[in-house]
């Protein structure tokens, strides 16, 4: 990843989504090749459904995007579209058309971390800490202001305000997942990476989650979500990318219609 300025950290507007580009990315684990020749340009404000069967490489791709893993070869960049840098609000539907990939500014990994959030297979929460302590810890690490208010709002939003003082180990799977999502949204990420985020959520939780995603999309946040075909949140997707055996098999593209890919996958499921 290349960096052109740390000062960009202070110029990302509240409403600007971040772009993400993969250039000939390959990831090997010993002799096993998890990702092959992935070239993908995700524009600010897009909502990308990352689809594929188990072992297709979705999680690996998301972990590389989250800067948790380095690719074996190729390049990954988080970038800010010039329109966003100037402070223009990126509408999800118009973002793809408006942003020009070659006009984007790459952001240094250390800076990008402030604006990237990920919900993974695991909750990334400390079981022995309370819900409030977990959120407070991460709010402190992200250097947020008004931590009490933010944490209270986060707990309220995910419906766990009444259990704020309970240890996470006493929570059900669904409650943990809601708290994990609240933790990820605490610092207002502009690039949200979701790896099977609906796991464990009940009907009510799913409705809350879909609503939250819709709000984020409205706000111009870039979302990349790997999930199974039955997830209702997929209807929010503006683009669908299908991975098979570590390669991109189909991509509806930034201006394309994701529905045919989603429909094909749903009929398979």
């Amino acid at each position: 990843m290349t960096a052109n300025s740390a000062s960009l950290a202070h110029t990302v507007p509240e409403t600007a989504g971040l772009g993400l580009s993969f250039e000939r990315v390959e990831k090997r684990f010993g002799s096993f090749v998890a990702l092959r020749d992935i070239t993908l340009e995700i524009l600010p404000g897009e909502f990308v459904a990352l689809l594929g069967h188990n072992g297709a490489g979705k999680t690996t791709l998301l972990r590389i995007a989250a800067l948790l893993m380095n690719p074996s070869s190729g390049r990954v960049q988080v970038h800010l579209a010039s329109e966003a840098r100037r402070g223009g609000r990126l509408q999800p539907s118009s973002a793809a058309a408006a942003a020009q990939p070659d006009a984007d500014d790459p952001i240094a990994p250390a800076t990008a971390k402030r604006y990237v959030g990920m919900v993974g297979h695991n909750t990334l929460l400390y079981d022995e800490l309370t819900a409030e302590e977990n959120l407070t810890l991460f709010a402190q690490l992200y250097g947020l202001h008004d931590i009490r208010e933010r944490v209270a709002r986060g707990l309220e939003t995910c419906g766990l305000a009444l259990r704020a003082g309970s240890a996470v180990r006493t929570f059900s799977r669904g409650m943990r997942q809601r708290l994990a999502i609240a933790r990820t949204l605490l610092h207002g990420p502009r690039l949200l990476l979701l790896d099977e985020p609906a796991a464990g959520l009940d009907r009510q939780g799913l409705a809350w989650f879909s609503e939250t995603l819709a709000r984020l999309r409205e706000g111009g946040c870039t979302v990349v979500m790997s999930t199974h075909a039955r997830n209702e949140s997929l209807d929010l997707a503006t683009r669908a990318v299908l991975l098979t055996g570590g390669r991109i098999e189909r991509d509806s593209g930034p201006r394309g219609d994701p529905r045919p890919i989603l429909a094909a996958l749903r009929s398979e499921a």
Partner: protein
Amino acid sequence: MSTARAAAILLTKELRLEFRTRELLNTTIIFAMVVVVLFSFAFNPTPEESRRYGPGLLWIAFLFAGSLMLHPSFAREQSNQTLDALRMAPVSTFAILLGKMLANFIFLSLAEVVLVPVFAVLYNVSLAGVIGRLILVLVLGTLGLVITGTVFSAVSAHARMRELLLPLLLLPILAPLLIAAVEATVSLLADEPVLDRTWTTFLAGFDIVFLSASWLLCDFLLEE
């Protein structure tokens, strides 16, 4: 955010987790205490033998305590992959390591605070005149133990046989530190106590070298 501020936040988290569960402290102190007590009954040493062999025994107890304590340091971040959350946060990787090192130093020091008086009573060793100098040696030795131990705990956390790997990696590296710590302690418990400057300087040098190396290599240490 500065490394010191991030390390302080993570240290608070470590202390809160440990004092809530007391998993590490209880196990470690009981285990090290058993070692010290068993040896005192097995050998029933004279004061002279205690002064000669006691320091070795004391540092073996600290080493065992450290090994028990250091292994879960990063391993317990694995259960919910909380290390991923820390690595994604906009803090330096060294802050994550430093927070763990400081926490481990506090835990091992607490174990030593309990063990040293028990050792003095059971082995009939008077520490009254050397306590200040002994604390210096203990601090330097303990720092070396936790710096290297935390680093290797991070390295072995992703390995399949991590319980076995940590002592295998750690013990050869710690051999010079333990020799220096034992020799410095022997000098302090002699008839005419003296702070051996050679071994004490070696201990300080060991700490500085390994702390600098962990600062330089921290990104690789926590990488998947």
